[in-house]
């Protein structure tokens, strides 16, 4: 099995290359087929990895030496341990489903070749990121998914908001990427090693707990994770990223790429355990982001933006679990979240597409007539997101996070944030559900979805329910398969004593029901045109965009404008040119009166008299004949030479290179 590891990122990469180079020879239908086959092949290899020995011991494959500089030789190598296996399974399965969903969804679009190229390339990059056995390769995957995310958000790039959103996502995540790069440099400067396993062992043996270097390194890595996973304060790009096609939102901005930060922290968790302050910061960022995302989602009116803020908030839960040292549980929530959030996005995409690209939830409610499969699967996804007790996967993963947060440092405070977030989660998702699917429009549906769209929805709906049963809550009789299976690599989370645990679980189970009824109350208020207090503040995402615009973008633009003023007439003119010009005019006036009026006039008069004398004296005709012939010669050579001055850049380049070749040839032979 080990030698086939490269096929997992390799097949989507191959697919994207085929689409890139041979895409013009294929028909549109076949483009989609190539892309789907590539992702299906990756998924098959992952299934094979499950069936063979991959689950028992980590697999390792080194393809070749990537760079060789002296002693330092980063390899192009892959590692498949259980953490990576979980991630690879999520990425390839959701990726395959989204590829299938895209076939009918994007069938009408132009530029399918670009779409499928980037979708496949994204899959390759994400799998590379997850499988990489050294930080350099991980960073390659990290940048690759960032690039694809940028290109796919701006897929409809002729629409200025879309291309702006893509650019914004790229620039904001770049801040995080820079931090991550600096972190990698720091680790390399300390250990002269980038291989993950060696690096983590070295760090745990050489660094003391709480040392400055460990804190600094983890802070930088956290910066990267925060940027990619859209946590506070770099979350502003994700809501705008929803302008891309819905399958892209489901795959990249909900299920896989945004969880790369969670994966990175889980992968480097020995480092984080050396830096308790950073670890607490991870939990605090997570807790704050939970409340931030959930409260902003309550006030949104754009269907997909609700889901975007919801993603921000749910990844906050994963960060909270990471900060509490419950890596396996963070990964558990990552898994269930990937299923139900992809489901929510795909069904939302189906509804939006069926209603003629209408994004506003109130208008969607008025239109009605939504495909019934989309409606039921959305309800399942919503229930799972809200964490409706016992029957949904979201309940089991979120409950575990809430309970384990209690036992962390300053746990009760974190728990209050997380529990409040859970309440808000139930409010916003049921608000959206009722506004969209129980609006004033007709409920019965006349639209049926194509088979390729309904199949992924059904599979994801099934997974959103059953994937929770593999890890029952702490203190319950039943299997704890997940944490036991991951126990070799990721330490088991600590839980508070059983009585507290049961109390907390009881409260967590009640929260979705309370949220459900609050959502109904909220809708009644909204339909009576009573808006929430702070609704505008929440809708703008706590005003982060305006804040960043005022603090960063505007000063930058102002600086650019000042610098540009050198070219225009306003800026520099007032400062430099005008006084200078006035001075020059004064001087020239004085000189004129003194010199020109006085001496120069007389000199000119003298020259004039001399010229008249010469003209009379010298043979008039001889001069004229000489000059005429000279002019004729000049004009002749001018007509010949001016043909070379035709203004075509390429011709000039051609002449220069021909000359260069001629001279080289002359010197060499």
């Amino acid at each position: 099995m080990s030698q086939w590891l490269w096929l997992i990122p390799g097949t989507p990469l191959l697919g994207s290359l085929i689409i890139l180079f041979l895409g013009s020879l294929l028909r549109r239908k076949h483009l989609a087929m190539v892309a789907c086959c590539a992702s299906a092949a990756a998924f098959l290899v992952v299934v094979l990895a499950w069936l063979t020995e991959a689950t028992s011991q980590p697999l390792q494959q080194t393809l070749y030496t990537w760079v060789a500089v002296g002693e330092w030789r980063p390899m192009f190598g892959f590692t498949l341990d259980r953490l990576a296996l979980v991630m690879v399974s999520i990425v390839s399965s959701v990726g395959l489903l989204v590829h299938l969903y895209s076939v009918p969804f994007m069938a009408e679009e132009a530029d399918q070749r670009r779409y499928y190229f980037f979708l496949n390339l994204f899959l390759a990059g994400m799998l590379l990121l997850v499988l990489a056995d050294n930080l350099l390769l991980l960073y390659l995957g990290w940048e690759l998914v960032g690039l694809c995310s940028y290109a796919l958000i701006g897929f409809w790039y002729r629409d200025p908001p879309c291309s702006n959103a893509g650019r914004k996502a790229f620039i904001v995540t770049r801040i995080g990427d820079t931090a991550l790069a600096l972190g990698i440099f720091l680790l390399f400067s300390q250990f002269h090693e980038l291989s993950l396993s060696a690096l983590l062992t070295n760090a745990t043996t050489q660094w003391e707990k709480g040392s400055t270097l460990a804190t600094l390194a983890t802070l930088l890595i956290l910066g990267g994770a925060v940027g990619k996973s859209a946590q506070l304060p770099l979350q502003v790009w994700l809501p705008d990223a929803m302008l891309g096609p819905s399958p892209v939102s489901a795959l990249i901005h909900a299920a896989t790429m945004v969880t790369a930060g969670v994966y990175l922290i889980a992968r480097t968790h020995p480092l984080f355990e050396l830096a308790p302050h950073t670890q607490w910061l991870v939990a605090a960022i997570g807790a704050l982001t939970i409340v931030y995302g959930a409260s902003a989602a309550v006030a949104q009116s754009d269907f997909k933006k609700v889901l975007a803020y919801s993603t921000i908030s749910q990844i906050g839960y994963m960060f909270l679990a990471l900060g509490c040292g419950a890596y396996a549980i963070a990964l558990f929530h990552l898994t269930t979240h990937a299923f139900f959030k992809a489901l929510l996005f795909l069904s939302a995409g189906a509804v939006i597409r069926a209603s003629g690209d209408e994004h506003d939830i109130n208008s969607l409610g008025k239109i009605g007539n939504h495909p019934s499969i989309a409606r039921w699967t959305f309800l399942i996804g919503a229930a799972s997101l809200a964490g409706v007790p016992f029957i949904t996967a979201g309940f089991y993963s979120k409950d575990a996070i809430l309970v384990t947060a209690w036992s962390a440092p300053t746990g009760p405070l974190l728990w209050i944030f997380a529990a409040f977030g859970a309440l808000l989660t139930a409010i916003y998702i049921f608000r959206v559900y009722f506004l969209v699917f129980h609006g004033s429009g007709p409920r019965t549906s006349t639209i049926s979805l194509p088979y390729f769209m309904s199949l992924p929805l059904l599979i994801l709906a099934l997974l959103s329910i059953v994937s929770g049963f593999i890890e029952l809550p702490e203190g319950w009789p039943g299997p704890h398969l997940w944490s036991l299976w991951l126990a070799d690599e990721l330490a088991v989370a600590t839980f508070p004593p059983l009585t507290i645990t049961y109390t907390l679980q009881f409260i967590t189970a009640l929260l979705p029901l309370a949220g459900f009824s609050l959502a109904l109350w909220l809708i009644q208020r909204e339909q009576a045109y009573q808006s929430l207090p702070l609704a505008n503040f929440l809708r703008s995402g706590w005003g982060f965009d305006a804040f960043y615009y005022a603090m960063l973008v505007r000063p930058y633009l102002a600086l650019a404008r000042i610098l540009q003023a050198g070219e225009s007439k306003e800026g520099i003119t007032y400062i430099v040119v005008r006084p200078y010009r006035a001075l020059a005019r004064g001087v020239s006036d004085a000189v004129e009166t003194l010199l020109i009026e006085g001496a120069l006039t007389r000199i000119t008069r003298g020259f004039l008299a001399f010229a008249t004398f010469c003209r009379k004296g010298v043979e008039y005709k001889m001069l004229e004949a000489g000059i005429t012939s000279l002019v004729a010669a000049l004009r002749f050579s001018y007509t010949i030479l001016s043909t070379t001055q035709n203004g075509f850049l390429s011709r000039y380049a051609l002449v220069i290179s021909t000359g260069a070749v001629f001279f080289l040839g002359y010197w060499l032979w």
Partner: protein
Amino acid sequence: MIPLSHSLIIAALLFVLGLAVVLLRRELLFILIGLEVMLNGVALTAIAAGQYWGNADGQVLVIMLLTVTAAEVVVALILVWLAFDHYKAVRVETLTHLRDDTDRSTS
């Protein structure tokens, strides 16, 4: 150890490819890209020579070259942008203001 000739062949290929792009493409941006490819060919030559002589000067030269290239790209991109801003054109055949327009018959 890669033989010198292999590196030089690759470098020459890069250079010629870049030159072909410069000569054949008509968009300013592609011509810039072609220039970059040619510069990379040159850089590869420097690296190969440095490796052949066991001397780090070649690599130093390449770092220098990268810096110069970055500066050159910045200036060139601004020029392209200005050209677009003034003439609303990015194709070189429309940018023929340097052509000698003097009427030959009358003068």
